[in-house]
């Protein structure tokens, strides 16, 4: 089972790296932007 999981991870490593990159970017953006005020001009 573990061997199969490693094999799958090896085959999909580029997708996994991309996913991890997006994950870091998404969480980083959210945490970095958290302290800033929201200004969306309405009507």
């Amino acid at each position, binding site marked *: 089972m573990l061997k199969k999981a490693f094999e799958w991870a090896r085959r999909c490593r*580029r*997708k*996994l790296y*991309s*996913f*991890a*990159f*997006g*994950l*870091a*970017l*998404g*969480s*980083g*953006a*959210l*945490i*970095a*932007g*958290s302290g*800033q*005020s*929201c*200004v*969306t*001009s*309405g*009507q």
Partner: protein
Amino acid sequence: MYPKTYSKLYPHWLRRFAFTLLGIVLLYAPFALLTRLVLWATRTPLQPDAHRICLRMPIQWLAQPWMYRTMIEQPAYLGAVVVLPVLAFFVGPLFCGWMCPAGHLTEFLSRLVPPRFQIDLAGKVNPVPIRYGFMVGMMGASLMGGNVCCSFCNFAHTQNIVSALSGNFLGISYWASFTVISFVLWFAVLGLFTKGGRGWCNLLCPAGALMGLFHSIGSWLKIGRSVQIDQSLCRGCKTCMASCSSWAISTHSETLHVNSHACNGCMDCTHVCEHGAIAYRRTTATTAVPVPAAQEG
């Protein structure tokens, strides 16, 4: 500037432009007709603007069960996590390809920039895992104290532009450091100066990711409609690939493939194909077709 076959797209782009204007009128202040209707129907005393039908916060709230009550009490927020994903499941993410003002603004403006000044990321970057990662990261960060902020939202930036055009300069007069970074990234780097003009949508839009996920599930179950290639008609000219702003069409091991996770349903490819090989229809079979070797390159 663009291949001659692209002139076939002008009437189609005009239709999409009309739907984009409809999107502005329905969702953005000072019009916000749909938002006003939902707020009036639910007796919610809030300002009707793009903030009320937010496409980001409810996705973050999916990881925060204590916010479910807010979503039920203010059903405008269910648009991003119920209405649009369900629509995407059955008919594809047509909101992205036909109505989203933020995506269309950069896409249409990018057509005015000569391609030699644009970065071509199609085929070089697989946008799907990055976009899913961004969505999951955004949801996960909310559990660690992160909070969705308008300063990184292109939907909010577009609202501020529409407001400024109608005389309200509050939004564009406020520039936090993160607002500047995200605006430049969305509008310039991944917008005007990226081929297709939808780099932000393809890589960093969590709403697009959620709709792409539901669209791909609908296609996989052969219930939903999707863009498909007819193997018998395809000549492998790859004009569809060049016209795809969502980088959804690619070649893998000599097959032409439409990635339903990435497709935004704009249907430029179905209109640009001279052989009528691509159609938007109910999913019936695999969309991967062999590319004739003689016509490759």
